[in-house]
């Protein structure tokens, strides 16, 4: 049935991914949860590599593991989270949360069931030689066939960036910020005044000695 090496790799990665995903929601310490999320992203990238989606897999590591999760950890590490307080509402929320969770699981089972996504439905992609450039192909598609959706997504992201900065930007009055250009422009005469003083002549010692 399955003797292919790639199948074993897939199942190993899938098992790690599920385990890591489970630990993200069960880990008591938020920092541990965030680190498990990093592991989940990394393993997902491995599964994408098996699908020959090299560019997406590497971009996932670069963007999510290398940047997003670093900032996420940054925030989580500095928060002082009270675990007991977080757990307080658990039993009250359960009657609502449980049906929602079951419903979501059912919906996913319907959509992702083998009837539509089974191996016989989706043809195995043609294997490409090692020098096939996945990145160039993706770029060509993105900037020709899908150029309008791509540009739209870019504009929406730009709006989000501007909005986030506008919401959080505040100018403090007590800041001690100094403009570096002004610092560089400082001349000696702004800070230092040279005063000319006549040199003092030492008085020659007298024959009596200066013991007085």
């Amino acid at each position, binding site marked *: 049935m399955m003797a292919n090496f790639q199948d074993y790799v897939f199942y190993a990665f899938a098992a790690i991914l599920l385990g890591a995903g489970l630990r993200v929601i069960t880990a008591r310490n938020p*920092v541990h949860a965030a*680190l498990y999320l*990093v592991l989940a992203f990394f393993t997902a990238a491995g599964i994408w590599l098996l699908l020959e989606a*090299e*560019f997406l897999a*590497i*971009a996932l*590591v*670069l963007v999510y*593991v*290398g*940047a997003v999760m*670093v*900032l996420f*950890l*940054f925030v989580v*590490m*500095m928060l002082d989270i009270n675990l007991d307080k977080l757990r307080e509402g658990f039993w009250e929320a359960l009657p609502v949360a449980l049906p929602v969770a079951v419903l979501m699981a059912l919906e996913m089972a319907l959509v992702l069931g083998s009837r539509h996504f089974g191996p016989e439905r989706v043809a195995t992609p043609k294997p490409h030689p*090692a*020098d*096939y*450039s*996945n*990145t160039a192909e993706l770029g060509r598609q993105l900037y020709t066939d899908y150029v309008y959706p791509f540009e739209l997504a870019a504009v929406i992201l730009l709006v989000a960036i501007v909005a986030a900065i506008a919401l959080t930007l505040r100018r403090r009055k007590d800041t001690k910020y100094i403009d*570096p250009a002004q610092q560089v422009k400082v001349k000696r005469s702004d800070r230092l005044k040279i005063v000319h003083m006549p040199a003092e002549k030492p008085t020659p010692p007298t024959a009596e000695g200066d013991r007085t």
Partner: protein
Amino acid sequence: MAELQAMFGASWPLVWNLAKIVAIVAPLMVVVAYLTLAERKVIGYIQARIGPNRVGYHGVLQPVADGLKLLFKEIVLPTAASKKLFLFAPVLALAPALAAWAVVPFSAKLVLANIDASLLYIMAVTSMGVYGVIVAGWASNSKYAFLGSLRSAAQIVSYEIAMGFALVGVLMAANSLNLVKIVEAQAGGFWHWYFIPLFPLFLVYLISGVAETNRAPFDVAEGESEIVAGFHVEYSGMAFAVFFLAEYANMILVSALTSLMFLGGWLSPLPFLPDGTGWMFAKMAGVLFLFLWFRATFPRYRYDQIMRLGWKVFIPITLVWIIVIGALMQTPLGVLFH
């Protein structure tokens, strides 16, 4: 070779690749060891001192002595530390620094894995090195270590953007993400190397490389005068040595990438001289010397100055230069890149 192949049978590709990995990592570790000696000697002479000269002839055995000493030191586990993560952090720091070497070519043929998106792979793998620093700082459960790791995280994330944009310029010019193809696009004498048409990006990359490796003058993550030793203040013995190894392996990696992408890799500077791996090593040594020279020359940057340099100076420079490259490639001047 055929007998060896017969001996291992089906496991031959595995054995052969492992042998290649050892052939890269073992010399790398020796170079790391002697880079520490070179650093102390170079900085010594720059400051009119001699540097280590007691162990062996002119101090050549100093790295061995240092290594042995660290090996025999006790690894102290702080009681309040998160033990597993505390011990795992050095691994997280060293593993990406070594994994990135898998795709670094030493000549047109001499490369462990000649994958199509090797440049992207290196960026992705090196971006994971920051976890070693962050996890070390957090797991130590010490304020100094924690401050160091926060500084480092902010700094590395900021400079990675400038670094990435500098590489975008290179891949636009070379029309490829493959390091072998990037070097081959620079063939034909040193005036074809990318440091000339991409000079601003070359500077940005080199300086961001210094910042990414947490080296002076960007070493606020260690900042002895303020936070003792930063993220690795609680580490001792070999656990500390692994962080040390990772830092120096990263320095060598950045110097290798600089020479591959901007200085023509293994290509000789004059067309009538033969190409060879020796050129690449010479270029790497030159870049490494710059690293040491910077450390001996510049005082440490203030934290807000680092952030300003990264976000307000380097990122705009790279963005402007990417547009310049794109525009130039549409004009007759596009030959600059080929």
